[in-house]
């Protein structure tokens, strides 16, 4: 619609292609390096394609990682984080589409929680969890990260794209508030929810700090913590790290590829207006 002719389109595509190649190079280097021996990973000038491909790092990874336990824990955290995402979405809708007393104050409180570096609140948060008796439990691991101001803020911003008339019309039809939210708002907010699902998945899939701090037992560790255990104090085994990162990124890419199509499968609001 913006580009007038084929030539322009080819130029834009070409630029995008070259740019894409440059930005994604480290990623491909990471994957290819997971197949290199330790010598080759850091050699200068670097090689892109491994000279003698080896699977030793992957074998090492799966032999040393308590894989099944960590995977289950990670998936539990992912599951709860999706419930958290639902609560975030509810709150974002509440802030975006309702007028109520104290709204500004509450929203400022939400925003304030993104303004301090996490390390500053780590110990106070731990002490609160400890007082509640939640240490060494899955709930203690899940709860601190369940709600994210970033997500609430993002949903709230996107609520402006949903016309108020639509909600009013539904109310006049006698629809309940929760019904409106699940049956009308959520489908309309699909593009941004797809973004949220991707971000939430990545965050919870990689969760590291709270599983480590809350757990007093390795049976509560996640994959990220397990991978960190394979790091030596003095010697960094780069090939192994690349293999671990590659392994961790595969599910992320799968989720991304599945959900990214909803980002553009946007609902055309104009049809209703």
């Amino acid at each position: 619609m913006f580009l007038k002719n084929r030539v322009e389109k080819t130029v834009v595509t070409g630029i995008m292609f070259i740019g894409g190649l440059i930005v994604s190079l480290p990623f491909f280097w990471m994957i290819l390096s997971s197949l290199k021996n330790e010598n080759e990973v850091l050699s200068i000038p670097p090689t892109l394609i491994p000279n003698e491909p080896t699977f030793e790092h992957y074998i090492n990874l799966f032999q040393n990682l308590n894989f099944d336990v960590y995977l289950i824990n990670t998936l539990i955290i992912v599951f709860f984080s999706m419930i958290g995402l639902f609560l975030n979405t509810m709150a974002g809708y509440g802030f975006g589409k309702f007028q109520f007393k104290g709204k500004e104050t509450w929203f400022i409180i939400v925003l304030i929680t993104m303004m301090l570096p996490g390390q500053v609140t780590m110990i106070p948060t731990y002490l609160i969890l400890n007082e509640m008796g939640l240490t060494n439990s899955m709930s203690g691991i899940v709860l601190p990260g369940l709600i994210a101001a970033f997500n609430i803020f993002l949903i709230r911003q996107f609520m402006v794209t949903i016309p108020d008339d639509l909600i009013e019309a539904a109310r006049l039809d006698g629809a309940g508030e929760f019904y409106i939210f699940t049956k009308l708002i959520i489908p309309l907010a699909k593009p941004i929810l797809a973004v949220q699902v991707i971000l939430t998945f990545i965050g919870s899939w990689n969760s590291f700090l709270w599983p480590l701090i809350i757990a007093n037992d390795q049976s509560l560790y996640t994959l990220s913590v397990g991978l960190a255990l394979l790091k030596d104090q003095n010697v960094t085994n780069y090939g192994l790290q690349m293999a671990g990162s590659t392994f961790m990124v595969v599910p992320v890419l799968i989720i991304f590829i599945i959900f990214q199509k909803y980002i553009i499968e946007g609902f055309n609001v104009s049809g209703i207006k």
Partner: protein
Amino acid sequence: MSTMKKKWTPFLFIGPAVLLLIIFSFLPIIVAFGISFTDTNLIGLANWTQINFVGFDNYLELFSDQKFMQSMANTFVYVIIGVPLAVGSSFFIAFFINLVGQKLASTFRVIYYIPSVTNIVAIAVVWGFLYNQEYGLFNYLLSLVDIGRVPWLEDPFVAKLSLILMAVWKSNGISMLIFLAALQSIPRVYYEAADIDGANRWQKLIKITLPSMSFATFFVTVTTLIGWLQFFEEPFVMTDGGPLNGTNSIALFIYQEGFQYNEFGYGAAASFILFAIIIVATLIQFKFRKSDQTL
């Protein structure tokens, strides 16, 4: 609908999230704020009776701490250059992806998102090679056009720019997704109407696309600004604040001085100075943006 019910409905929506946020995020901030007025260290942490109230001493000390002042100055450089660059580039990537055909667009979305999911160690190794003064790719390419070795990470000022470039590269993915979702939500009829009025494409970009996306631009700008004010990971893995403290950021300072050395009171005070800067910057943005919504 009873008015009673109407009054409570919004709280049922925001309630669960806000409650959890207050307990696990807001309360700890209040505690940390209290800590910033004390001399809490490891001994105090173990035995709370050993904690002394010191008033504004930590804050005053910070303003006479050379390293902290330099970290602040560095952070301002990061923000002033980094934020416009990060917001602008992610917008243009999203905009261009939206222009190419459906099939290509989905490939490009994946490709341009990839830096966000690349492991930080891999990033550090690859960029470390690109920036290597003697053997790096950048200096090799520059030598082909007869430009001497650039001290990418060896000079305090150049190193800041190098880290900005790297951080922009890494951060584009998420903002791009948000812009893409926003571009998608612009009603097609607006463009159709503009076509009928004979508007050219720049007019459409400036009169329709940009205003219709202001809610997303606002979000991206605010969160990007907060992110850059808390700039941490890049200097942490690439330079550890060096050379000569030239790439140290406030967040890295807080980590090094406050938490590596257990000076929790001092670290908390530094983070509330950072907090004050962030809140001022955020409020300014809330004030100056188009009044399409109330707070």
